[in-house]
């Protein structure tokens, strides 16, 4: 399991780098207008995969939160921890790459009137809160209960984000995942984008396996330390 985790992380990482290279060498340049800053559009080949991958990571977080909340299973908590770590990592990728693109294309890094942007920022903030709190709080049932409750906030935010995307769209471009009449994506762009999304997903699965295994080991270590504590006390 650990070996496949490492293998997928390496393959995914290589794919992510390949996507960056292809976005400069293979993907064609967009026209200006309608694009204000045609070169800056290339960031979408990382921005969009970051967004889709972080949604997957947030899903892990929410499934973990629900499993912990309903069944108090250790694997649920490990899944929750893994999801929050990776959700933060890929979420930060989105909220860093987005404003860079936004600054060049819209002239402003952030649009407070755009619900999709803001809910995504909120999801990342929730993930950051959970990661920081997990590190600063003593581990225990009560801490886990409180943090998994906070994780469920995100669970409520995901469908609202999806609705916001379609119903209340302001400045942010429409969802880009496959070619359609609306997106009108060039086939070469689509190829790079698909390679990017697949690479990010493989990277995310690899990192999830490794992180999950490391939390399992941490749990074993904690139990060993507690048994040593008992021997020392009694």
């Amino acid at each position, binding site marked *: 399991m650990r070996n496949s985790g490492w293998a997928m992380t390496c393959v995914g990482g290589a794919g992510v780098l390949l996507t960056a290279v292809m976005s400069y060498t293979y993907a064609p340049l967009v026209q200006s207008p309608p694009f204000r800053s045609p070169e800056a559009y290339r960031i979408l080949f990382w921005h969009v995969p970051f967004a889709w991958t972080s949604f997957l990571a947030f899903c892990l977080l929410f499934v973990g939160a629900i499993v912990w909340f309903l069944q108090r299973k250790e694997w649920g908590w490990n899944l929750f921890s893994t999801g929050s770590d990776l959700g933060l990592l890929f979420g930060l990728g989105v909220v860093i790459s987005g404003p860079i693109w936004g600054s060049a294309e819209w002239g402003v890094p952030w649009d407070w009137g755009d619900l999709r942007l803001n809910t995504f*920022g*909120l999801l990342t903030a929730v993930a950051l809160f959970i990661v*920081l*709190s997990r590190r*600063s709080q003593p*581990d225990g049932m*009560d801490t886990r209960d409180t943090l998994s409750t906070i994780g469920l*906030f995100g669970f409520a935010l995901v469908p609202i984000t999806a609705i916001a995307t379609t119903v209340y769209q302001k400045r942010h471009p429409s969802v880009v995942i496959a070619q359609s009449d609306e997106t009108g994506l060039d086939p070469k762009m689509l190829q790079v984008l698909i390679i990017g999304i697949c690479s990010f997903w493989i990277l995310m699965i690899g990192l999830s396996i490794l992180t999950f295994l490391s939390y399992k080991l941490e749990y074993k270590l904690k139990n060993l330390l507690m048994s040593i504590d008992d021997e020392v006390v009694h």
Partner: protein
Amino acid sequence: MYVDAQPLIQISSLDIHRGNRLVISDVDLELSEGEVVALVGPNGCGKTTLIESSAGMHAISSGKISWRYGDSEMKIIRDSEGRRNSLPPMGLTLQKNGMSGEETVEERINTALVVSGCDVNEIQVSNLLNYWGLDHRNSDRVSQLSGGLARRLAVLSGLAPAVMSQNPRTVLLDEPSEGLDESGIILLVNWLRALASKGHGVMLATHDPRIILAADRVIRFDENNNLSEELQVQSLSNYELPIPTNEVKISKILSLFNWAYKMEKRNPVDTIGRFIPSVLALLMIHTLISEDEISVAGADFLAAMILLPSFISVVIPPALISRYAEENCGQWWAAVIGPKFRPVSSIIGSSIILPLPLIYVSWLVLSDNVVFAEEAGIFTWLWLPGLVMFSVAIAASALHLLVSDLRRTGASVVSLLMLILVWPFIELVDALVMIMNDGMSFGFSLDEPLSMIFLSFTVSILVWAISVYLPDA
């Protein structure tokens, strides 16, 4: 032993985890009328957890805890399936005193009696305090008492609901003799025996041999959390307790509201703590941004600036949480109020008074010389976003309460969660912009103010509901 004793508390197959440890494992225990049960054992064996769990304060991994309500049958107060009920009238003294330093000695006893439905007057309270040598300090704040006197007061507030009741009641005491002097311990032993003789049931955790000797039953925890029981024969006590009083209908929530109001009136930390940053924000906006700039920036900017001071006032941490944190005061109230504690506290702790006046003041200060077609209508309808700001306030307060559950509250970055409330704020800004530009309308399409106001309200209530109901589910 008390003749024909009925059970007051029944604990069955109880498992409780604290941290990662199983602290209480498969415990069956009963407390009956007319008996004093002492829980004895080494530190960390689970005595405090058992006392607190009996008061419904901890989530249960398996098993159930039932209490007797008056003459009726036993009712579950908490079980592993998430069922919860509030406790019948009872007395409770926690390991920490469970009192805020802001309340006076008299108020403390009064509160403990009122939440347990005892109809007492000033003379009766004074008489109770006199027994414990506290009458001369009755109008002093708890923070002004020495550690020993504060402990006397905490123990008395745990015993008083039973002492002043004509019907058998339960008293839970956690290490009551800790911090008491010799005369205090003798007094406590006398009161314990007198209460048992009158049919009340007392369960206490202690290390003190004098208190253990006063118990009818001693339950010992060993190092492996196994329990053993030992009976002790006690004679009926002739000790004179204060005369019990009549019972009245209890309004625990109203008592909490009154208590919070008195604390705030005495030391308005919450009001001033919210008012200063909001007014500062308003003054800075007024000073740094000229009217011309506001006119040029347009309705979006002005609406955001009008609502901003009010928004700042609602997201500031409530002073109620600091009061709850003092000497585990919040835990005492949580045990007394039961499952409604969190929703009620989130409402009481939120900024109720400030948002609406702040919105009107901001409008008057910032809208000078800015011309809108619907100016008269704006003033008429400003109360609507102000009212919805109250839902944002209770959501913020609920989030702060949720984070205060973490053991190291100071180590958590609660402001990250407050970002959630930026969203309802933005929707309110949108609604106000629509009112400014086109006046108030009552349709529900996305470009009408009512729909934005409704969305803002719904999101706030959703956040509030998740924060108050999920943690206790």
